[in-house]
């Protein structure tokens, strides 16, 4: 389920992998928000085109997208069932009680295209930025250290705790546990409770270890900030594109 390799599979060779994270993060966030602002159907081709270019720049394979779209895709599917038939007044086509409505179809089109465009940009962002780097960048950008430390340490323990959980599961199986079902809810609760208790006990020891190495004593060094011209150019391109989209949406 969780594997280390999938995390920030830094395509560091690509233009995107090399883009200074402290500029990449704000640049792409501004861009996705400008995408989400779009209401005009005529802007959709521009959105798709720019997200495709961005995805190309990240040098990620296409399969990367497909494998990750499943979870949010399910939600989109639900919208596809609801919107065209229940939203709006203008009926395009009627079959018994089932009526295909224009406004719903337009909404669906808008939602789908915006989703795909934003999705591609966000995948390109996260797949080229390893989490530890992302965390330090967030701190450099002024996010409170309590959040960034929490993020970093949670990330550190996820792998270990999921393998702890797996081992506990294995142990239960070896003693005849039939697997997860409604009937075995009590065992599941025990397993979860055990995991929490052990995590709590471990947290105590981890805190001791961190204190001994001076946690909270000095400021952790921030990643070196050495942008080159290309970094600023990319940021400028992202900001300009966002501005263009916003202006077009307002004035066209």
């Amino acid at each position, binding site marked *: 389920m969780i594997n280390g390799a999938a995390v920030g599979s830094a395509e560091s060779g690509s233009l995107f992998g090399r883009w200074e994270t402290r500029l990449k993060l704000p640049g792409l966030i501004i861009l996705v928000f400008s995408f989400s602002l779009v209401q005009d159907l005529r802007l959709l081709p521009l959105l798709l085109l720019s997200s495709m270019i961005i995805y190309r720049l990240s040098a990620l394979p296409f399969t990367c997208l497909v494998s990750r779209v499943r979870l949010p895709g399910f939600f989109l599917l639900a919208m596809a069932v609801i919107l065209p038939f229940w939203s709006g007044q203008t009926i395009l086509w009627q079959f018994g009680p089932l009526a295909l409505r224009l406004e719903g179809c337009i909404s669906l089109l808008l939602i789908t295209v915006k989703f795909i465009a934003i999705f591609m940009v966000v995948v390109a962002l996260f797949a080229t930025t390893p989490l530890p780097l992302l965390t330090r960048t967030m701190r450099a950008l002024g996010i409170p250290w309590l959040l960034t430390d929490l993020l970093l*340490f949670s990330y550190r323990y996820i792998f270990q705790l999921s393998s702890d959980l797996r081992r506990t599961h294995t142990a239960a199986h070896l003693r005849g546990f039939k697997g997860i079902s409604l009937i075995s809810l009590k065992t599941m609760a*025990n397993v979860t409770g055990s995991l929490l208790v052990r*995590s709590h006990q471990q947290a105590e020891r981890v805190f001791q270890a961190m204190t001994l190495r001076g946690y909270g004593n000095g400021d952790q060094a921030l990643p070196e900030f050495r942008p080159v011209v290309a970094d600023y150019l990319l940021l400028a391109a992202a900001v300009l594109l966002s501005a263009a989209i916003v202006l077009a949406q307002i004035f066209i």
Partner: protein
Amino acid sequence: MHIPDGIISTTAAIGGYAAAGGMTWLSLYKIKQKYGNPRNGIPRAALLTAAFFAASLIHIPIPPVSVHLVFSGLLGVVLGWFAFPAVLVGLLLQAVMFQHGGLTTLGVNACLMGLPALMAHRLFCLRSLFGRRKPLPNAILAFLAAFSAVAAGAIMAALLLIYATPAYFDAAAEKTAVLTLSFAHLPVALLEGTFTAMVVLFLLRVQPTLLEADQK
């Protein structure tokens, strides 16, 4: 409930970020008030966040589908004021590790899960009225806390989907949709409530200090 990118309006997305920012600020303020040096609480909050994250990957089959627990209630009960930052961090971790997007809706999703978690925490704190270590009030309050956390999350999500998406429902259809979405979550809320009550009973026997997030 996990609202993907591009579905809700930008105003709602930005509003979500603003609300999440405010809630985080409030949480950090409360944490500082309680711990003095809030760094002391970080390893515990981080390990428990990771544990919840790991546990939420377990799917429970309710034929014909399989659901996974949200844990918003349990999270609130165990983490107290740390629950909101923990939810935020958990969602960001998910977005980064599974890379399924959710960046513009991060604030909204954090509120959908974090606010009910805080509510669950307040609700569970009522146990001090009945005797903190008595199993029955603990179990009942844990059930109510988790049940209402899921229900609140579902209702908030349904409202958001109706009023913040570019859809044009008539009033009657809206009402039906909210009701349907909420009722669809009824079995999940029941499951979550029962499960949380069981875990709380376990913790009460094995490590009651884990339930005293409000005590410091």
